[in-house]
């Protein structure tokens, strides 16, 4: 990385953090610290909501996902606009009416303290874990690709965000997020334009898209109903709606964003803003990945995108085997280039048959390419059993470092760090607020001065920051980082959402039934997930039935189970009393 890149990156990041600290230097009450004086306008809320959701993983992993499997991941977000509408109609007005600090506070008015503490604890558990992952995931990628020491990367990734979040609370989060989101959007537009300009000049833009399409990278929609398929239209619309209802409606890191709004109208508009822009934004990020794929069809692509793994194997006894596979891969790539050129030439002349034949050849060579890459991954794993062989998270950053102009590299790295900080700051602030409001103030120190709660909020932010950093340092790597975050979320979100929906829509259900229903439902969701992951099953009519359900559906299952179980228990209880 050049000096100019370092200057651009550090000036952008430290400038935003410094501005956040300076702007919020007068925050001196617990309410101001936790809810930020409730003065945000809709566009600021919208940007803040988007910035909270978009972590660094989004920008590292998502283009790589499109590079590998195509753009189908965009379907994951299809339920989001509907979730925004449902929240605007049913949920936010209730939060405003009760003037709550946290989402869980609302539950006590409906079900009593145990349910409030249970849901707040589930949130703390999963969000505390996710906060560590939010720091760890990009740190691993950046340290391996840049050659930075992992612990120092984690430290830099975490320490500045902890400082400004502790300093200004939710207000600092909002102030910095607005600017971070501007950097993110600017970086995204710039990256898209530069990638398009880098595409081979011998083809029109439409032809490069045809290459991506015919090689299966523009598969945005899949209408086939398949419970085990992670990303299709139905899992996005149904499972996704429940996931986003839960994430935006009950996860304090998001609830605190729109509760900082000046009024109900501003909060609702903030959600609408998110509903309008989120899918197009994800589409653009995935599209960038598809374009990088096309770029590498005409330029030498690394045999493996994780440089650290490559360097390690080149120093090992497997180096000759690796070199052999690399040479084979280069030959396949050059044959594929030729086949793609034939395919486009046939398209230009309108020769459908020749185009089809060339496409078949391209796809066969792509299959060979995939196989050779799988062989290389196997070689890496044989050399080092601990090595994370999945390299899709390294695709975009490798492209940026090798083909983006000086200065832009710094800006794009600032974009990745901004994304990491924007989500981490929200998470830390929400963890601290929930700990103080739902646990500390409610159970341990019920009556103390505003100053005391303000100080405790700051100390809990430091504590959660420490927990996240510690987790990031000691945690094991996950096979796919973005999926790990979503899977963890799906284990808890459905149940939390079920409790909230029961509170909103099943008026007859009392606190005891909701509490027990939530506990049983959580146990069932974890059991279903564990059974699917470990291929466990049960004997039904003499046959072994293995339950394998894609994780998005766990949101729906958890939610329905809580509502159904609590309703049944309440009904049984009432009928017993009547008898």
């Amino acid at each position, binding site marked *: 990385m050049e000096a100019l890149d370092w200057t651009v990156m550090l000036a952008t990041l430290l400038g935003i953090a410094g501005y956040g600290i300076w702007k919020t230097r007068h925050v001196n*009450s*617990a*309410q101001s610290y936790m*809810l930020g004086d*409730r003065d945000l306008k809709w566009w600021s809320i919208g940007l803040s909501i988007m910035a909270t959701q978009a972590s660094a993983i989004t920008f590292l992993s998502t283009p790589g996902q499109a590079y590998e499997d195509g753009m189908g991941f*965009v379907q994951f977000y*299809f339920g989001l*606009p*509907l979730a*925004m*509408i449902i929240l*605007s*109609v049913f949920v936010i*007005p209730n939060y*405003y*009416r009760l*003037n709550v600090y946290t989402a869980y506070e609302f539950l006590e008015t409906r079900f009593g303290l145990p349910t409030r503490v249970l849901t707040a604890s589930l949130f703390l558990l999963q969000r505390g874990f996710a906060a560590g992952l939010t720091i760890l995931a990009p740190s691993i990628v950046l340290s391996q690709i840049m050659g930075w020491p992992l612990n120092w990367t984690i430290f830099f990734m975490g320490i500045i965000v902890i400082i400004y979040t502790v300093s200004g609370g939710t207000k600092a989060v909002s102030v910095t997020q607005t600017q971070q989101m501007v950097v993110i959007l600017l970086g995204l537009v710039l990256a898209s334009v530069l990638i398009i300009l880098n595409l081979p000049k011998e083809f029109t833009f*439409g032809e490069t*898209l*045809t290459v*991506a*399409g*015919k090689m*299966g990278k*523009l*598969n*945005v*929609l899949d209408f086939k109903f398949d419970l085990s398929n992670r990303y299709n239209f139905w899992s996005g619309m149904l499972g996704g709606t429940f996931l986003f209802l839960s994430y935006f409606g009950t996860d304090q890191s998001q609830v605190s964003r729109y509760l900082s709004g000046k*009024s*109900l*109208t501003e909060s*609702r*508009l903030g959600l*609408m803003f998110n*509903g*309008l822009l989120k*899918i*197009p934004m994800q*589409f653009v990020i995935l599209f960038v990945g598809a374009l990088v794929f096309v770029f590498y069809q005409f330029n030498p692509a690394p045999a493996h995108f994780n440089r650290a793994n490559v360097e390690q194997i080149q120093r090992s006894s497997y180096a000759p085997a690796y070199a052999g596979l690399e040479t084979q891969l280069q030959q396949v790539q050059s044959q594929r280039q030729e086949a793609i050129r034939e395919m486009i030439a046939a398209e230009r002349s309108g020769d459908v048959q020749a185009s089809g034949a060339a496409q078949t050849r391209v796809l066969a060579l792509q299959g060979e390419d995939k196989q050779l890459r799988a062989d290389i991954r196997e070689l890496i794993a044989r050399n080092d059993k601990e090595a994370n062989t999945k390299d899709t998270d390294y695709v975009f950053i490798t492209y940026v470092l090798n083909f983006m102009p000086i200065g832009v590299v710094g800006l794009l790295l600032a974009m990745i760090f901004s994304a990491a900080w924007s989500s981490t700051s929200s998470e830390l602030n929400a963890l601290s607020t929930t700990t103080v409001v739902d646990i500390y*103030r409610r159970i341990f120190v019920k009556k103390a001065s*505003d100053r005391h*709660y303000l100080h405790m909020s700051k100390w809990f932010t430091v504590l959660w920051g420490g927990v996240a950093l510690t987790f990031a340092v000691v945690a094991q790597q996950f096979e796919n980082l973005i999926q790990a975050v979503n899977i963890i979320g799906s284990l808890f979100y459905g149940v939390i959402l079920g409790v909230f929906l029961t509170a909103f829509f099943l008026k007859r259900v009392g606190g005891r039934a909701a509490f027990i229903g939530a506990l049983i439902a959580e146990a069932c969701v974890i059991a279903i997930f564990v059974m699917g992951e470990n291929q466990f099953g049960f004997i039904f009519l003499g046959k072994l039935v293995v339950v394998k359900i894609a994780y998005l559906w766990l949101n729906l299952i958890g939610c329905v189970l809580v509502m159904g179980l609590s309703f049944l228990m309440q009904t049984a209880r009432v009928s017993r009393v009547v008898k």
Partner: protein
Amino acid sequence: MTTNNDMTTAGEGPPVLGTWNKVYLFLLVFQAMLLLGFYWFMRSFS
């Protein structure tokens, strides 16, 4: 801790389109158009 009691909760219309229902409908129509666009995009280049 202090509480904020001046939060507006009722009788607020959106600044555009007149009613909230129209805003929600706009969002749904926008998504439907987006999906149609995706479909066209996918079909055109594959």
